[in-house]
């Protein structure tokens, strides 16, 4: 593939559009979606958008990948390469992202076991009930109350078979 034949302006707009689009879609998903599993997916999408933006930051028209192979190993010509620094940063950030995602999924498994739901609003309500219970504060008086609607009735613990908390 010959990068020179690309139309630079259109290409750059397309790529920026793609990266910004991913970030916006991802953030919108996290803010608006009610399913916690889907929120984790949306977060990964937003992170991917950030990564794409970084790689675009290092891209040069007409440049090649920053790896010396075949002929270039003889000449050691590194002048027409794309910037390797953003690529290294993206490598780091992808791995960080997957670590955080795994932790989020572990938390989802536990939340689902204890509260029996994947709906963020219900999870939040159950959590507030638990917090208020442990603080021995009346629900209606709680400072958290005006945040949303009244807490849902007690979490479906009976079906969720509360894990033994030794």
């Amino acid at each position, binding site marked *: 593939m010959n990068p020179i034949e690309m139309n630079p302006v259109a290409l750059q707009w397309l790529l920026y559009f793609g990266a910004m689009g991913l*970030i916006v879609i*991802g*953030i919108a998903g*996290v*803010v608006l979606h009610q399913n*916690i599993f889907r*929120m*984790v997916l949306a*977060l990964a999408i*937003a*992170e991917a*958008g*950030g*990564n794409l*933006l*970084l790689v*675009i*930051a*290092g891209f040069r028209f007409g440049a090649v990948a920053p790896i010396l192979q075949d002929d270039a190993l003889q000449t050691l010509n590194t002048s027409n390469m794309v*910037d390797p*620094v*953003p690529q290294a*940063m993206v490598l*780091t*950030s992808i791995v*960080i992202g997957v*670590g*955080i995602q795994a*932790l*989020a999924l572990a*938390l*989802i498994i*536990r*939340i689902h076991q*204890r*509260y029996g739901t994947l709906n963020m609003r219900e*999870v*939040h309500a*159950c*959590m507030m009930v*638990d*917090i208020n219970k*442990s*603080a*021995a*504060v*009346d629900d209606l*008086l*709680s*400072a*958290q109350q005006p945040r949303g609607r009244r807490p849902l009735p007690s*979490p479906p613990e009976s079906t969720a078979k*509360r894990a033994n*908390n030794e």
Partner: protein
Amino acid sequence: MNSIVLNIALPLLVAFLLPLIHASSRIAARITGPLVLMVMMWSAVIVFKALEYPVSIALGGFLPPVGVSFHLDQLALLMATIIPLLMLLLWPYQYEQNLREQTVLLLLAAASSGLALSGDLFNIYVFYELISVASFGLAAANRQASSFAAAFRYLLISGLGTVLALTGIALIYTQTGTLNLAQLGLLSSRLDNPLGLSAFALILLGIGVKAEIFPLNGWVAEVYSTASTRTSALLAGLVSKLAVLAIVRILVVAYDDSEAGLMLLVFGVLGIIWGEFSAWRAQDLKRMFAYSSIGQLGMILLAFSIPGEAGMFAGIAMMLHHLVVKPALFLLTEKWNHGTDSLRGAARLSPLAAALFVLFALSLIGVPPLPGFWAKMLLMSGLVGMDTSVYYIALAVLMIATVVEAQYLIRIAVTLYSASDRSSELRLASNTGVMSLFAVVLLSALLTLTPLGSKLYHIAAESSNRALYIRTTFNVNPTPVLEHKNATQEASL
């Protein structure tokens, strides 16, 4: 000087090996963590003492700006000393099955030290992420259903912050082609445009998640009331300050104009209003302190938004004051974890804890002889000194917030000392030992106010000196700080 990297390498090394140490000898595993923290403190103190002027060390032997560099100045080393000290105080000594928690705490110590020392934008991001993941783990360590849910919500908000910060870093890199803070300082004219400022806003919001910045602080009350008190104390006391420190470094070095500072001011004022009024309405101590810490963090941001030495001085003073007071107050909630009404007459059952509460509360409000008063005084005089209407509005908000703060803290104090109408089963707050240590620190700060103040002023002058930072990193003529005082004033003009 190079040996300061041990503060990062050693806790990481031990954290990696801790499961193996545990498998061979449990006693060794139990003492390793505190031992490592002591070594860290020792190494930080040694470097701190030997430091006459700021030094930059190049990691991997690649000179900045190409490689990652650490910036060692008094502020960074002060934090590097405080981190292991605070962790030693809040270390979970008595629990049995806490191998993983200890591992995570060591990782948190390493990441915190790295964040305090780092002089590279992306390196700051990496250490910040390490702090994030470690604090998610600590938030969930309680293993209650509610703490899982709180940790998950914390993770999501933090994840959003990560994306924003990463976008901000990408924008800065697009504009300048570098990541080194000092070089960003040299190129700050390229960042003095809407794009550069929005990059700063993104990083501010992203890193600000840990600093409990206004729109992204939904997690604060949830996590602090579900996690263990030690974790709350660590997150509110240490992690939030480190996030603020990272933001301030970027602000001071790379954004030497008023707009970025104004952004800090706006978020600070919003945080003060939201935090203090929510705290006023809170019905139990944990959430009250959580919201009040949002307000306090807002004040700290407000202080750092004042350009020059005055703002840095006020900010560092408020930061250190909050660092001592807030963990102590959180330790208090370990036993007093019920609604405020149940605290009626608790002073008779545990007089020491109640007295300590009153001491810390008065200092937090800013009652004259106590250190908190001087910190707030610095902030107010800094705001007045700016002589701009925006800062006067901020001052008015600060005054009102102080009244609100006084109202709810004194309400608690009165409840503590009022006659109880029922036989309460409250016992002595269990951590009065550690709390008294915090009180001793606070009171000794009071006794040594003059030398402490001049030392802090010295630190503030050094770390608000942008020219010095840049010169240090590029290792041109490292000269003692005092000669640069004039240069600071010129730079701030």
